[in-house]
């Protein structure tokens, strides 16, 4: 079996354990130990879920973009499996971020939904990801599927900042980001659990990415070995 896969199997547990640790500590600090917000009261606690989910969905899309460039360069099918896994996870994290955002928006903005800049750009991100995943189901030839999917992912990634700026000029209601490069606008009691949760969520994503990549890889391998139709499947040279 592929050397990379064996290495993933050896180390993936550490990511899972790290994610569980960080998330448990973060949840305790965020939901129990930290004080309620001066303006928003207890409602603010959903931030510890919502913001890490949003960060992680962008991290996942960045991984997808990096992997797509890498795939077009090296044409390694395992990298394509990773892209496929990252896209699915990014879609899940994006929808969860939108969903928790709606729950948070109801008490604070008094509306479930508004066409504000960040909401709109996350919706566009979700639509691009769904298009990407649909596209993959419509192509029979695995090599072509991987190539076209990479093209769509790259174009979508380049589009995101432009979408964001255009929607930001269009209308803005969202509260300013809690932390940015210019400085921190959040008290450290709230910030520490938030960072903990962000790290935990990123580790969770990494763990899920490793498991899912393996699964897609093994599925491909199984199909190929079963049918002895190696020519029709997109495998790396080591396996065929």
């Amino acid at each position: 079996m592929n050397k990379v896969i064996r290495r993933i199997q050896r180390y993936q547990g550490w990511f899972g354990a790290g994610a569980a640790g960080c998330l448990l500590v973060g949840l305790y600090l965020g939901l129990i130990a930290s004080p309620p917000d001066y303006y928003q009261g207890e409602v603010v606690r959903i931030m510890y879920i919502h913001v890490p989910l949003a960060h992680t969905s962008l991290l996942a899309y960045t991984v997808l973009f990096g992997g797509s460039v890498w795939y077009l360069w090296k044409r390694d099918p395992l990298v394509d499996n990773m892209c496929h896994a990252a896209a699915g996870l990014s879609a899940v994290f994006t929808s969860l971020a939108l969903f928790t955002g709606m729950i948070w928006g109801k008490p604070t903005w008094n509306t479930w939904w508004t066409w504000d800049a960040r909401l709109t750009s996350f919706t566009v991100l979700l639509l691009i990801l769904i298009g990407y995943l649909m596209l993959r189901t419509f192509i029979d030839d695995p090599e072509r599927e991987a190539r076209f999917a990479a093209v769509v992912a790259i174009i979508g990634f380049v589009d995101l900042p432009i979408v964001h700026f255009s929607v930001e000029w269009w209308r803005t209601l969202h509260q300013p980001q809690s932390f940015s490069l210019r400085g921190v606008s959040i008290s450290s009691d709230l910030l520490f659990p938030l960072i903990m949760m962000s790290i935990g969520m990123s580790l969770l994503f990494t763990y899920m990415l490793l498991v899912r990549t393996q699964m897609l890889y093994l599925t491909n391998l199984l199909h190929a070995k079963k049918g002895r139709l190696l020519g029709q499947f997109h495998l790396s040279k080591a396996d065929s």
Partner: protein
Amino acid sequence: MTFLKVIRWMVWKDLISEVRSRETISSMFFFALIVILVFSFSFSMDQQAARELIAGIIWVAFVFTGIIGLGRSFSVELQNDCLEFLQMSPASKGAMYLGKVMANLIFMLTVEIILFPMFVIFFNLDVIEEIHILLLIFFLATFGLSAVGTLFSALTVQIRAREVMLPILLLPLVVPVMIAAVEATKGALNGDPLAGYWQWLELLAIFNVVFTVVSFWMFEFVMDS
């Protein structure tokens, strides 16, 4: 063949076949006409409401007809296996892309220029003073549509369910073009000072440069055989 010659031949070939068959432009035109009718039935508009909504209606009609044209741009290449010959050809793929972008731009702009007077008549618009700036907006936004749309037309023509996938992939990506075009058109039709909506024209220009470059590069991977 040199790079520029390939571009010229691609445009020429598409124009010739369009002049002979008159399929793409006429289908785009009648589809757009139907869209305008549907819109005027769906909203009962007085002068005031028309002014608010018209920019959006114009661009929805233009983008939908654009998608029809873009879809045809490569599906006509399926006849006689022309697509495979394009893929096998030693000519620069980037030049083919630019040629197709130009041809699609010409088709879409032609339809838009025929349609716009109809909007003016049906919705009582007052456009004489702003016509040059409107034409600039049409050009920039249509170029953006064509730059991304041509790439995705070449991509979706090679897969199953191509008629469905082209709009699903294309529409989210051209959200910035839609917003900028609608806002700029609204500004121009209201007779606002140019400085009030100049930033949207800049956004369109940036979009066009970025996506022409990226799609130019990506087209090679799409046309790989």
